[in-house]
């Protein structure tokens, strides 16, 4: 029974892609068909293993409600990325199996990350996930931009993880254990020691980098702009959610005592949201716009998590799942808009409603969801998060978050308006965009999901509440 867990299937999928990468000749058409099916099998296994519970390997690896739910969300993101990357245009044909291999190993790392209960497992999983992503960025065959971005990404990344390991070592010394729950149990004793603060913040450096919180957010715009669109969709959603899960697990384990760190979390959340939203207002490249917007979205997620209440965390999980769908759809639209995988300026959206009404509608729904407009899932998620914040007493934070949300509306609305207006289009600049039937179905599905889960949130919310119920 335990064989059919998602980890096994991810390992099998990586072996599958690895074997393809060893071939001299890659038959791309056959390969592309298989890619989608591989992702689907992994998704099935995640759904199947949703009910697995247990503790493994001397308690370093735990499967509980929370981890299995997050695994489903992560693998869903992985599957959507594979599905939408079936014919990735800016990676050389002979490198394509490695492309999918690294996506798979990265997901494997993240899946292990959400189940980890011990510092060693955490570190190993995080590194597995990160190295795969470092390798994916330079695969884009677009020259100077991707090389520079990849070196920036890897250097900041390994710096962050180096600092994190040093922090882990200090934490290990202070608490004499590497198990997260035991560390959390000793928190009340450690707050007075300055060295603990050093250790704690160093340990968080790696995760702040993954989540692109202030102050480790500077890599985001460059890497997003220069990387392959599908990979960036993956990084912006799945990898953020994995980082968020670790943060949530730590908060859940620490419980009420973690409120000592409130001021810091609030400051980081406000800084992240504000920097993200204000910088996005002036962007001219769609991927950079989405990069800054995703920095801000991570800020909203932090608002939900820092409440450490049942409401806050279940709201954050709901919003994370909604964010997955919205952001992946937004990047999908960009990949459809770009010719041969080149970057897309914001003006390229003009007249989209004529080129492909379905794509324009999908753009409208996903951007409105990101902006938090009812009755879409983004609005409902923000409602849950902000009301949880007020409920736990963080009034000022909620007010700042609401106003940040309103500021962000401006840049989302500008893009949507361009998509639907018909001014400023040069004659003959409008070729229709044909979507494959599979992609059309994806568009309809994502619209339906965003509207339905936004208007009827109770189905998913009871799921999220159940998953963390054991901690409260």
């Amino acid at each position, binding site marked *: 029974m335990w064989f059919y867990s998602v980890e096994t299937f991810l390992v099998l999928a990586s072996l599958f892609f690895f074997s393809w990468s060893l071939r001299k000749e890659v038959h791309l058409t056959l390969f592309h068909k298989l890619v989608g099916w591989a992702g689907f099998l992994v998704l099935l296994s995640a759904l199947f293993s949703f009910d697995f519970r247990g503790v493994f390997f001397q308690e370093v690896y735990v499967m509980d409600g929370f981890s299995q739910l997050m695994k489903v969300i992560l693998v869903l993101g992985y599957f959507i990325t594979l599905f939408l990357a079936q014919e990735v245009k800016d990676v050389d044909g002979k490198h394509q199996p490695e492309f999918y291999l690294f996506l798979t190993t990265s997901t494997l790392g993240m899946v292990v990350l959400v189940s980890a209960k011990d510092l060693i497992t955490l570190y190993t999983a995080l*590194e597995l996930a990160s190295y795969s992503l470092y*390798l994916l960025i330079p695969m884009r065959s677009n020259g100077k931009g991707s090389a*520079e971005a990849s070196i920036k990404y890897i250097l900041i990344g*390994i710096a962050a993880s*180096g600092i994190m*390991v040093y922090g882990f070592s200090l934490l290990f010394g202070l608490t004499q254990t590497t198990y997260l729950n035991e560390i959390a149990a000793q928190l009340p004793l450690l707050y007075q020691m300055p060295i603990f603060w050093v250790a704690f913040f160093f340990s968080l450096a790696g995760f702040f980098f993954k989540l692109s919180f202030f102050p480790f957010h500077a890599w985001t715009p*460059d890497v997003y702009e220069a990387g392959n669109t599908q990979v960036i969709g993956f990084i912006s959603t799945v990898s953020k959610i994995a980082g968020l899960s670790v943060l949530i697990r730590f908060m859940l384990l620490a419980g009420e005592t973690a409120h000592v760190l409130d001021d810091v979390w609030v400051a980081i959340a406000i800084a992240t949201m504000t920097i993200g939203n204000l910088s996005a207002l002036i962007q001219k490249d769609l991927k950079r716009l989405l990069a800054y917007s995703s920095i801000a979205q991570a800020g909203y997620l932090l608002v939900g998590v820092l409440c450490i209440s049942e409401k806050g965390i279940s709201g954050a999980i709901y919003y994370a799942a909604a964010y997955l769908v919205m952001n992946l759809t937004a990047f999908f639209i960009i990949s459809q808009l770009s010719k041969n995988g080149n970057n897309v300026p914001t003006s390229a959206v003009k007249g989209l409603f004529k080129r492909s009404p379905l794509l324009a509608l999908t753009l409208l729904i996903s951007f409105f969801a990101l902006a938090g407009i009812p009755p879409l899932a983004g609005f409902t998620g923000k409602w849950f998060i902000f009301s949880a914040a007020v409920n736990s007493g963080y009034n000022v934070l909620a007010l700042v978050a609401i106003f940040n949300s309103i500021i962000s509306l401006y840049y989302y609305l500008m893009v949507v308006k361009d998509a639907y207006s018909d001014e400023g289009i040069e004659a003959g600049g409008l070729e229709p965009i044909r979507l494959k039937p599979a992609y059309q179905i994806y568009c309809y599905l994502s619209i339906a999901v965003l509207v339905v889960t936004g208007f009827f949130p109770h189905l998913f919310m009871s799921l999220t509440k159940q998953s963390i119920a054991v901690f409260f």
Partner: protein
Amino acid sequence: MINDITPYLILSAALFCIGLYGLLARRSLIGILIATELILNAANINFLTFSRFMDVDKAVGQIFTLFVIALAAAEVAVGLSIVLVVYRNFNTINVEKMDHLKG
């Protein structure tokens, strides 16, 4: 071996600071990778020190060290392959020359 924990901790802290400085100040990509190795090894020394002097399960610190060594090796492998890609594109490994993308 010295029987006091403090010198080892000072050593690892010093290594960490040197590594951090190198990370921020060196211009050559290889130099930056070496600095990162210094940071990781500082952490390793910490683990081993705590494993020796404190009341922990002796194996844990040493296992963590082995993991860090292995992962550092993998990291360098990945890093060097990316340095190669960068060299092919820019013909230099001077970090200051790579500023085409806006910050």
